[in-house]
């Protein structure tokens, strides 16, 4: 008999007033008992709508059944048939708009906690199981992957399993991409990312750090080195700014810089670590996505007294996950909605001291389908802040496109790639993830990595 409770087994969490002062993970994860109980809520539907909602087609009912039966190692193996990074996806995937959105249980009450169960299986495996020795028959064919974020890691893992010799080129000193520099420790522990990367290395993938492709090697030079195909998974790129007065004042950060200082460079340990970050007493984060929430919650943890989210639309239009908005509010982040910055005000010696904003109201729907925010006349007001973090997205990085003749890009700079095969205009070059789509999610990038691996395999086989 399935467990007919209309609600998910609650996720144990750190208390908001404790966790907003530390960088430990917010959600603590299910125990074996909790996982089994939640797994029993799955109806094992024949038509499996949840699988359709998953960009990498995890066989959800199958793995959940194994969890319900206490066969955790097998549950993990079931997931990893199609998803190489379950511990990460279980934590950062927007399940509410994917698998769980289509869950039949969600029609009356809450859907099955698919993400929580995925996370449980992965954590259980990492804590209890011994990684199996993998026997792979080598094809003796080389593939280069540029970037070691979710798209690159997934593609490399899949290709390695097929027998390819894969080399990942990573620009930073540490692999992981946005999983390392972007998403904070309290949402995605770095030790866990490292373990997932080690699993991929265990498949024989070589990761070369400190390699900025486009500079140290061009794509053509990589082909000359014997790589038969290249997958570009270099991520989103250059942070956008608002284009308002005062954005170069001291105390104004891009979210990328703020988060990289904290996550990758461990500024929260300064001066034990060498990279500092300035947080100040009052912080305004401009933007309404997950990155804005991450920046705001990090600022709070580093001791800011007041942290504002400044967003020009209403909460309904916010692109951030509901869970992140909810967590941010619980931790004391103050939401100033329908508010738009007009200029940042500085002291005489160039430090931020305030931000002038206008109130907005929602008008007719715009190109994105969301109601367009328009300024209210005479609503200008100044907020006292000493740090401003701009989290409004990114524009594509030109390092590869500018040094690769024959690689076509869209007007806004994103690489043009076929939706299914991810082939670019340059033969043998495939591209996916944020480098193609602009800033999106970890799981979409992983989905692209999977597609690319398949297409690269077909491409190389058809060539030989």
């Amino acid at each position, binding site marked *: 008999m399935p467990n007919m409770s209309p609600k998910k087994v609650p996720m144990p969490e750190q208390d908001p007033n404790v966790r907003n002062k530390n960088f430990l993970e917010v959600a603590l994860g299910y125990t074996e008992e909790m996982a089994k109980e939640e797994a029993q809520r799955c109806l094992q539907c024949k038509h499996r709508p949840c699988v359709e909602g998953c960009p990498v087609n995890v066989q959800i009912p199958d793995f959940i059944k194994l969890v319900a039966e206490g066969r955790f190692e097998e549950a993990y193996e079931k997931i990893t048939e199609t998803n190489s990074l379950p511990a990460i996806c279980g934590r950062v995937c927007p399940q509410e708009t994917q698998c769980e959105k289509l869950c039949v249980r969600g029609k009356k009450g809450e859907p099955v906690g698919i993400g929580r169960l995925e996370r449980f299986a992965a954590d259980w495996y990492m804590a209890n199981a011994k990684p199996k020795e993998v026997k792979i028959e080598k094809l003796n064919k080389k593939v280069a992957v540029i970037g070691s974020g979710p798209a690159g890691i997934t593609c490399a893992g899949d290709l390695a399993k097929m027998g390819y010799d894969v080399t990942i080129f990573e620009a930073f*000193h540490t692999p992981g991409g946005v999983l390392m520099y972007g998403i904070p420790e309290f949402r995605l522990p770095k030790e866990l990312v490292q373990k997932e990367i080690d699993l991929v290395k265990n498949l024989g993938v070589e990761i070369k750090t400190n390699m900025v492709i486009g500079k140290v090697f061009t794509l053509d030079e990589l082909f000359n080195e014997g790589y038969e195909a290249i997958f570009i998974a270099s991520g989103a790129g250059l942070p956008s700014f608002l284009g308002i007065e005062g954005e*170069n004042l001291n*105390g104004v950060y891009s979210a990328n*810089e703020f988060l*990289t200082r904290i996550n990758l460079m461990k500024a929260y340990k300064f001066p034990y670590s060498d*990279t500092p970050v300035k947080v100040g007493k009052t912080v305004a984060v401009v933007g309404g996505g997950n990155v804005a929430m991450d920046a705001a919650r990090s600022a709070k943890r580093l001791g800011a007294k007041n942290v504002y989210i400044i967003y020009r639309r209403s909460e309904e239009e916010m692109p951030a996950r509901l869970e992140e908005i909810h967590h941010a509010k619980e931790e004391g982040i103050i939401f100033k909605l329908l508010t738009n910055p007009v200029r940042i005000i500085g002291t005489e010696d160039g430090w931020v001291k305030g931000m002038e904003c206008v109130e907005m109201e929602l008008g007719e729907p715009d190109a994105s389908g969301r109601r367009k925010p328009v300024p209210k006349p005479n609503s200008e007001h100044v907020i006292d802040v000493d740090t401003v973090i701009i989290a409004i997205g990114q524009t594509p990085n030109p*390092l590869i496109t500018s040094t690769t003749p024959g690689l076509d890009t869209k007007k806004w700079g994103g690489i043009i790639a076929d939706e299914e095969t991810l082939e670019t205009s340059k033969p043998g070059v495939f591209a996916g993830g944020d480098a193609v789509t602009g800033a999106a999610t970890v799981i979409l990038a992983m989905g692209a990595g999977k597609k690319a691996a398949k297409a690269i395999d077909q491409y190389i086989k058809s060539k030989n």
Partner: protein
Amino acid sequence: MFRIVRKQILNPSVTLMEVEAPLIARKAEPGQFIILRVNDEGERIPLTIADYDREKGTVTIIFQIVGKTTEILGNLEEGDAILDFVGPLGVPSHLEGVKKAAVIGGGLGTAIAFPQAKKLHSLGAEVDAIAGFRNKELIILEEELKSVSNRVFITTDDGSNGNKGFVTDVLKKLLEEGNKYDLVIAIGPLVMMKAVSNLTKQYNIKTIVSMNPIMIDGTGMCGGCRVTVGGKIKFACVDGPDFDGHEVDFDEAMRRQLMYRKEEQVSLDAHKCRLRGVDNA
């Protein structure tokens, strides 16, 4: 890991290191930079490439000991290795087609001006090199500059080398004497690059300056290195580090350079305390 094959103390606070980095040496051009990290807790610091040897596979960096990272770096010896060394980053300087250039270095900036002079010289340009230092003891690369320049002028702030003055005094004199340059390259402290740019603007001579702002990744990702050039935000790491000196907002750049002044001191002090066995935590 990147092995140090040669170390040379150029003056009490400036050190030269030739580092084994064949992939970078293969591609490096004047104007480009590397980013390095000395240990696992270390920060990433950008240093302009002072020279490179494609055959030996080495890249030369010259740095001044100013903070914790350069202090640790300066204590490494030949045979030791640097943990991370990435490059070549930034856009190479455009030096083709120049007939006569004045290449100006201020202090440590001379180390970065040198490869520019060398490249111009190899392209057949006539090069006047001007380098300024606080005093005679701090003079670096005089012989190297002589080997790639038609004339070399060395000034000191205190006159201890017998030629008191600033680099701008020399440049002004040369311009007043009727020397015509189609390019001036100025590399050094922001205040010096600003002064040179102000002077050359009056003569309408194209002037390139090399910006060295605070940076993390060096690939355009963080935006920490932004500089206002011609009223627009530019990222020194991917758009520069060379910019038109007549367009750069130097006053803003000088303010931004001070952003972590306090933290830099804290970091250095904590490091020195640990070295002395004093627990500062």
